């Protein structure tokens, strides 16, 4: 014997629809919540990246409590920071000089005439009114010379690429590299020149270091793109001659010319860890379900990084 619904199906359907709409419409509600965050004492934030062969320049900022309404970009530090550069045995090398922010910039710069020498170590000690004093050490790595050569055109899925080989001899010991390219022609000088590569040792990096990813050799079938730099470690070719092939799209240059400078940077471990943490924080900032990443710092008593890197570049006309 068939069993029927107690009410006509149409009525039941309308009722179910109405109730479902009410239910679904309420599935997102938010409200302020009071949780006592601990007192946060502001710290001096250091941005000190020492490029081999270039005068040392450091930027300073101040951290704030998370709930503060001020922007960390407020240049209230002004010339108030006393920053002194030391050598490894504690002798003063120089006192950094305050420079106003770049045009359009907001952070004060502190510069020195001391040039960061490859293989040398430096210590920074700094104080600012109302903030704990900080100290940090950095060693500038030795650059690794790179040679580049064009090896012709390649068609991949209907797109023509200019194929370029970058070759270098990796020194003994673990090394992290950044491989980048910038335009050098007059129209687009110093602009990033994107490239792609199928080399399995290159690590993913969309805007910065990205999160490391081990790519197994058999997976290197297709090229992936790098808008800023490709990152790689020497795992698998430590102490050997390494050749990496990168491809430049000749058809979609976005206004960037064909004169490029291809650079291989050796990054210190502190710089890698700082930039990696920064990148992970950025990429997961909007995901409430990902465990947050603590910002890396090698600055005692403060935040930020004081770290060295060394770059070797070669120019090429595509």
């Amino acid at each position: 014997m068939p069993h029927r619904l107690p009410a006509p199906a149409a009525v039941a359907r309308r009722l179910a629809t109405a109730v479902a709409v009410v239910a679904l419409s309420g599935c997102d509600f938010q409200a302020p919540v009071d949780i006592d965050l601990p007192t946060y004492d502001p710290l001096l934030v250091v941005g000190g990246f020492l490029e081999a062969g270039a005068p040392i320049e450091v930027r300073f900022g101040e951290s704030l409590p998370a709930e503060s309404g001020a922007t960390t970009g407020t240049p209230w530090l002004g010339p108030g920071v006393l920053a002194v550069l030391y050598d490894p045995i504690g002798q003063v090398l120089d006192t950094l000089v305050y420079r106003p922010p770049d045009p359009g910039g907001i952070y004060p710069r502190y510069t020195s005439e001391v040039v960061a020498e490859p293989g040398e170590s430096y210590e920074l000690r700094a104080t600012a009114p109302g903030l704990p004093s900080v100290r940090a050490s950095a060693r500038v790595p030795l650059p690794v010379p790179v040679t580049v050569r064009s090896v012709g055109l390649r068609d991949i899925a209907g797109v023509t690429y200019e194929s370029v080989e970058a070759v270098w001899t990796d020194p003994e010991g673990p090394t992290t590299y950044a491989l980048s390219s910038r335009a050098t022609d007059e129209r687009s000088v110093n602009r990033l020149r994107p490239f792609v590569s199928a080399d399995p040792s290159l690590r993913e990096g969309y805007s910065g270091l990205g999160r490391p990813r081990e790519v197994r050799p058999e997976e290197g079938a297709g090229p992936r793109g790098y808008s800023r730099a490709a990152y790689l470690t020497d795992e698998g070719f430590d102490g050997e001659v390494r050749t990496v092939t990168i491809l430049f799209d000749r058809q979609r240059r976005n206004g960037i010319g064909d004169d490029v400078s291809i650079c291989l940077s050796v990054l210190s471990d502190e710089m890698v860890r700082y930039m990696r943490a920064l990148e992970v924080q950025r990429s997961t900032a909007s995901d409430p379900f990902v465990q947050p990443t603590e910002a890396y710092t090698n600055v005692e008593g403060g935040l930020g990084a004081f770290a060295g890197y060394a770059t070797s570049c070669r120019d090429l006309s595509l």
Partner: protein
Amino acid sequence: MRFVRLLLLSASAFLSVSSGQAQEGARGLREITGYVLERSTDEPLVGASVYVPATSEGSATSAYGRFVLTTRASDSTRVLVSFVGYRPLALSVRELAVLAPDARGEVRVRLDRDSLGLGEVAVSSRRSAALVGGIPAIQMAEAERLPSILGEVDPVRVQQLLPGVSGGVEGTSGLHVRGGSPDQTLLLLDGATVYNASHLFGFFSTFNPAAVKSVDLIRGGVPARYGGRLASVLDVRTREGGGRRTSGEASVGLASAHARVEGPIGAAGEGSRTAYAVTARATYAGLIARAFQSRDEWADYGFGDANAKVSFSPTSRDRLYLSVYGGRDAFDTFTSMSGFTERGRLAWGNLTGTLRWTRPVGRAAFVEGAVIASRYALAVSTESRDPALRDPSITSYRSGLADLGVQFSVEAPLRAGPARLFRVGVEAARRQYRLGEGVAQGPNTPPVETRATPLSAWEGAAYAEVEVHPVPALQTTVGVRTSAFVSGETFASVEPRLAARLRAASGLSLTASLSGGVQYVHLLANSGLGLPTDLWLPSTDRVSPERGLSATVGAEFSRRRWTASAEVYGRRMDGLIDYRDGAGFFNTAAGDWESQVAQGEGRAYGLEALLRYDGDRTTGWVGYTLARSERQFDALNDGEWFPYRYDRTHDVAAVLVRRVGRVDLSATWVYATGDALTLPIGRGPAFEVVPGGFGYGADDPSDEIEVYSGRGAFRAPAMHRLDLSATFNRTVGKTERALTLGLYNAYNRSNPLYLALRREYEFVAVEGGSGEVTRVPRGARLYKFGFLPTLPALSYRVRF
């Protein structure tokens, strides 16, 4: 094979001893074997109690409704047979021994359904159903009377009302048992492992309530026959189909509808050898939602599942069961703007199959073998179209795993000293892991593929357990389980299992258990939401198995209709995995999952208390858990211990069910300490350089680093909620009808799904009267984002 042969020989030796015994032994012991069945359908009842109060001897029915009662009671002594949701039956030992026996002398006890409370008679008998951890799982008959989300009874989520069992994200069906994560609970559907037991992002489980016959939740003292998980076991058995007539049920609710048909195949009636049960369920919430969305932007959600089971007896002793489950979810999105379109699909599904063979051997022994398969698959895809380009941009991702295994076990009574029953078994399974394959292709560009190398592994186990009664008042189960896992690297483990119950005085029982466990598979979970993107991973040379040791001590006192129990537990865990800071699904999906995870240890301990009343018309309980669950990973939180995200210091569940006339009224109230959260406490400028001669990047004041508290250093506001339900029952002839109305979260508590710090700004006019405005920061405030407000529940069910 040699091991199996030895096992069979050993078993045969035991069986010959057992079967050679007279039914009544020299010391006055007698064995009564038989089945407990539902009267109207002859459906075997799993976990029913057969109990002799005078001697405190008892037995619980197996997955086939079978019991072996070994008793020294005299013929006239009273035996109680009971099961939740059924009218208990009291009869003498003599009556039981001759109750509808078959050719082998195995008896048949049939119970009538009874939607009322258990009553005093059954209270004491149900205690024997579980040897230890005396709080049995909530069965479907009880669950149907309790409030539910949108009227959809969920056999898994309802277990969160038990002490020691908590949910993670509110409303989801994941089980966090005694401080363990959801993956540490072994979910079995007719013996097959279910890897992702969630529909609708975890708000419904894959277990169709209409298909479920029994639920057994083992929270401590896990028997040796179960393995592979650290915390607990949820063993769900589906209906087999009636032996006498075709029957079924149909139900419609706000979110879904389901139907079941079952019955004999061929000649119906007593002794019908072939039976079937088919159940199907589908949701229409997505279709309804579509009607209220625009053509240019919509989201659609659908899920469905089906269970089918056929059982038949090729001989008078042998019985075969074929059980199949298939379920699938699909979440589709579409956006269109100015000719640009984007489609997305997230789809996942489980498929399980079990072919099982059973055979009684000798007088009371029982042999069982099975071939079991389980498969889980996830697929994510997007397609974007630019009207100016011929080809679309496409991304796709797939992952999953598949198991194929065999099991064999023997169970038989023993008369060796105080030993009463032994059970031995072997298992082997091949597991294949598809750890993520992604393809991305833009217009006019070649596809970029990422693929984590698929892995396969072998897992094998052998176990033995013996029930020993040193004295009548003391029942113990002693077992050992050995297992091995081969996935390039080989892991092996020996796990002790011990459980004991001492009936110390009238109504008072003391329990204790010790249970070692090893878990060779890990669940890498983003959120605890039970998202389909959670990834099951094998142990490898870089990721070791999870190992744990649990112990419990408890006491239980029952008097008339009241039962009070308390249990203390502790567990150590090692080899736990978690994402490294900042890692997430989309990194893992890119290939190298091993570098994305950190391994560490954990500890969980707590006190559980329960006060329960089982009246004729009123049933209810209050459960309370005081607990702590912590983790320590060298790579996380500076190596310091931190609370597990779903650590619940206090967890309370109060349940009240009252029958008024033909109406079941019920209310549940739950309270739980909030999640342990990591929150930002400071922020600063994010300085960086671009290597390659670019120097410092441009100053960007909005680009900041965040400084966080220690992991889990903050507590979200507590979660609490009141749910109400009223079920109007009506029986016409053989047809039962039930209309359920209810409210979920009756007082509209905004329980937080997550917390986030939100910057607040004020727009002020720029000085000079130009009319321009600028955004001025005014601070930041912590917000909680709730998810489930007051929701109505409505369902109508017909059972015939």
